[in-house]
């Protein structure tokens, strides 16, 4: 089906009255924003995620119990006093989960930003220069990708890890390769695009091509990937914690909370379900937001309202 464009240039009227046929031009940002708003799941997810982040940071600070504080109530199920119950040592699980959420978010956002920065740089350099630079750099990326991330991260984290920023560093050190591949692909495809060639033919400078044509067009893919990385990182951190190579006490994370509670599944299920639910909500909402962003940035929008 031919794409139905909403942008039409004003007919250059040379005779007769001036009549409006166009629906009006829209800027790229407006279009992206409008399309994002049409993705209902993404908009709801964004709301939920913002609420969750506020709860973790603001709510956590205001909550009557501190994480790690021992209360006289041991192993009580969820109640008004302890919405998520308490563990066998009497620690309030709500406060614990909020702290775990903060640390898990810190880990995953750091991973996403670090890996995106390094990977984008690496991939764009490889894609932009091409030739042997590209070959060597991408072989290195491929090499990193042949290793199961969890295994290498476990090995490194066992000896260097423990605190949240070291775990983030370890995971980012492996994820950048994935990003570099995506970034290279984007740069390669953009380099061949007609509008870049047209700009070159018009004598536009390299910096103008990069700033006016490459960056705005690559921004979408990079942003989408960054979003998805946050979700991936939160799950990897969780798995590492479960295997015993993640964040360790006195730090805590959602992954650590669940893995500590795995034997309590039948006796004190609240300890297992609440942190797990938080992980799912975070990863789910982030994935939906990423999906909404992808749809919004996709220039080949073919979705027609039903």
């Amino acid at each position, binding site marked *: *089906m031919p794409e139905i464009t909403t942008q039409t240039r004003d007919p250059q009227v040379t005779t007769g009255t001036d009549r409006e046929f166009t629906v009006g031009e829209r800027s790229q940002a407006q279009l992206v924003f409008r399309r994002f708003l049409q993705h209902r*799941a993404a908009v709801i997810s964004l709301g939920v995620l913002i609420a969750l982040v506020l709860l973790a940071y603001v709510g956590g600070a205001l909550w009557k119990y501190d994480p790690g504080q021992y209360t006289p109530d041991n192993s009580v199920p969820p109640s008004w006093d302890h919405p998520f119950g308490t563990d066998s040592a009497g620690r309030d699980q709500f406060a614990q989960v909020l702290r775990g959420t903060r640390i898990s978010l810190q880990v995953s956002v750091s991973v996403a930003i670090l890996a995106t920065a390094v990977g984008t740089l690496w991939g764009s350099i490889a894609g932009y220069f091409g030739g042997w630079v590209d070959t060597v750099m991408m*072989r290195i990326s*491929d*090499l990193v*990708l*042949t*290793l*199961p*991330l*969890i*295994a*290498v991260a*476990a*090995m*490194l984290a*066992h*000896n*260097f890890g423990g605190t949240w920023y070291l775990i983030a560093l370890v995971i980012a050190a492996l994820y950048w390769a994935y990003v570099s591949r995506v970034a290279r692909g984007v740069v390669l495809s953009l380099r061949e695009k007609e509008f870049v060639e047209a700009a070159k033919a018009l004598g536009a400078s390299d910096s103008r091509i990069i700033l006016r044509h490459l960056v705005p067009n690559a921004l979408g893919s990079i942003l989408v990937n960054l979003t998805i990385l946050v*979700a991936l990182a939160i*799950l990897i951190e*969780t*798995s590492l914690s*479960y*295997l*015993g*190579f993640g964040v360790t006490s006195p730090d805590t994370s959602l*992954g650590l909370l*669940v*893995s500590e509670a*795995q034997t309590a*599944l*039948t006796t004190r299920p609240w300890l*297992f379900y609440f942190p*797990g639910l938080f*992980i*799912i*909500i*975070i*990863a*789910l909402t982030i*994935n*939906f937001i990423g*999906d909404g962003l992808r749809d919004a940035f996709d220039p080949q929008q*073919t979705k027609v309202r*039903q």
Partner: protein
Amino acid sequence: MLAFAVRRIVYSVPVLIVASFIIFWLGSASADPLAPLREKNPPAPQNVIDAETVRLHLDQSLIPRYFSWLGGIFTGNFGPSVVSTASIGHDLGDRFLVTIRLIAVAMVIALVLAVLLGVLTAVRQYSKFDYAATFVGFLFLAMPAFWFAILLKQAGVSFNLAVGSQAISTIGQASVPPPQGTGAYILDIIGHMILPTISLALISYAAWSRFTRASMLEVMNSDYVRLARAKGLSRSQVMVKHALRTALIPLTTVTALDIASIIGGAVVTENVFQWKGMGDYLVQSIRMNDVYATASWLLLAATVVIVFNLIADLLYGVLDPRIRYA
């Protein structure tokens, strides 16, 4: 075709060699195999530590140590373990057979599920079914592998309690001791595989299903599918012969690229179901600072990944005539 295959195989050898060095270097740099001995209380006598240093080749520097390890692998010797009686090659071999069983079956289930759901959601784009399947897919993408495995395991336990049998085993990869008779043995293996494979498959299928959907949608909007319809082929003929056949080609590459993360998922799944597979071996080796065992594990995993990618490349050449002999 043969030349293409040979070239690809030859090409992957240097990749594997470089990978092996990085693996060995990372393993050696990140762990001290003698640390447990030194930290023992009371401390181990110096002569014991010295003997271990020699046995583990720690008196040599990294490069000669690496080459003696690599050379040994060709003769089936994967280097000395910190457990002096253990043979890394032997243990890894046993555990590899256990794990590959899990991975292979889970991948087949995941692929079938992914293609089925991917095609159905593409054909019924924006239907209620599409939205429901998409949401479930996103849910599994967001689910921590072990969290889901633990839930499934608990469900298995409840099921066994309810029916009063052990038809679905929740612990280990086989009964100890194994039951008598080939039939009983196979049933036992299958009973142990049900939950872990379902768990791993469900955690893995979603990304492929999304990919299949996108790929199908792209092909379904292509000019050649339109021409196939204009020829007078029925909708189902067009879907199978033209859309599906072409849309699935890129899935081979995507699947192969994901094999590393499937292995990662298997490590976690095995730990939940207490399989004595590669996952358990990795965790133990890392905990004991067993450098040679960890490095050998990673090398084996890297080899599997490279072999899978090789197969995917060859398959791609067979499936897509544009790539052939290229």
